[in-house]
């Protein structure tokens, strides 16, 4: 582990726990201020549902993302959220601009820059949106723009596919076929597709690698 990675782990844990405490302090502050306390007996089934839903995603993401992004950007991503539609695309675009291979020391460093800039931009945009909420509401809710806002994720992943899937076509073909079968034929949930799809792609790629079928 490089000294930068060691620092990222140390800082990531310190800032991560501190930010988690600060974020979780909000309902506590509200309860103390208004002397209204939650009815945990009523909300626990909903909380448990969210834990189960999110834990399965996070665990599969913990297998998928560390070899791509590195620790620094991942700690920051999980503090600030919006992994799929902002942080991953920004980090991958940054690597592409600098002509860096995913999973390298350079990739880890530029991913940190990308995720930090993306987080700051989102925070500023949301704050501006709140300040300008009244004049912006009719524009943002306009039926002309609605299809664009409904298709942000497909546009991002179409762009990412064009950027990365052609780099090693044999591996990409394997992953696309595996995901097509898993999602469209077997109708498996996305988090399990990620986990199983990565495992299946790695096994087949390993066979190709052993037989010298992948370019050096």
């Amino acid at each position, binding site marked *: 582990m490089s000294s*930068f990675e060691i620092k*990222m*782990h140390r800082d*990531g844990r310190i800032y991560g726990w501190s930010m988690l405490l600060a*974020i979780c302090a*909000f309902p506590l502050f509200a309860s103390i201020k208004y002397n209204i306390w*939650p009815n945990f007996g009523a*909300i626990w089934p909903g*909380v448990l549902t969210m*834990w189960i839903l999110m*834990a399965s*995603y*996070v*665990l599969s993401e913990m297998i*998928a*993302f560390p*070899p*791509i992004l590195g620790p620094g950007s*991942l700690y920051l991503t*999980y*503090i*600030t*959220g919006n992994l799929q539609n902002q942080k991953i695309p*920004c980090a991958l*675009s940054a690597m592409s601009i600098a002509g860096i291979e*995913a*999973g390298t*020391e350079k990739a880890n*460093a530029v*991913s*940190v*820059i990308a*995720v*930090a*800039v*993306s987080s*700051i931009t*989102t925070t500023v*945009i*949301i704050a501006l*949106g*709140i300040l300008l*909420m009244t004049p912006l509401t009719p524009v*943002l809710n306009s039926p002309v723009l609605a299809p*664009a806002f*409904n*298709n*942000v*994720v*497909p*546009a*991002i992943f179409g*762009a990412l*596919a064009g*950027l990365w899937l052609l780099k090693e076509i044999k591996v*990409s073909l394997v*992953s*696309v076929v595996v995901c097509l079968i898993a*999602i469209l034929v077997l109708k498996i949930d996305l988090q399990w597709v990620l986990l199983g799809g990565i495992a299946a*792609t790695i096994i087949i790629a390993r066979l190709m690698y052993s037989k010298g079928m992948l370019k050096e």
Partner: protein
Amino acid sequence: MDYQSLINSSALTIFVAVVLLLVTTVCVIYLRNGWNEAKRLGVTTAEMKKIVLNCIGISLVPSIPIVLSVIVMAPVLGVALPWLRTSVIGSANNELISATMAASATGVEFTTTDMTPQAWINAAWAMTLGCSVALPIVLVVLKPVCKTYDVFRKKDSRWISIFSLCALVTVIAAFSINSGKKGIIPSAVIIGCFIFSYLCNLAAKNPKLKWLKDYAFPLTILFGLVLSMIITPFLS
């Protein structure tokens, strides 16, 4: 104190502003660290400036649906709570599901007229406890996972590069197919963006159009959004 005054109190808004200021400070510290490390590893300042500009461009459009979700939640939950939950950790969908479940568990509808201070407190705690679970898992699990990957990297660095690529292309393939299965419009947008991105990268091989490589990604997203606006009236 009536419900609207409670959920929109300045104390709550200031509290959220302070938390977000702290989070932004952490982002700036990370940005500085990443910048110094990238520079040390030989990434040029010009490249890093391009990365910064690109990331701002890429983050702008996906931020708008987040602003919209805050606008949707604000009349029912006030400004402070949705502002905090959508700016950090949470995703708007999960937060909305969590808040709705909490309101329902309290015995009220998730509407401006039905919500009570008790339902709001229940929602605030449910959103915080339910949707913040990812971060503590990452804080505990990430270091051992990275150490395990490092052991493999030392054994065969070429294989770990292919391993990373396998994870990367599967993530892209899985999310693309999962988005595409929702209908003909997202499918058309994905295919359109894939072709547009390929053409941009092809055109960028021409020395006169080299600049296109740096802006291919945000341009492709913009193309996808415009394409969706054009095809929706015909295909929906």
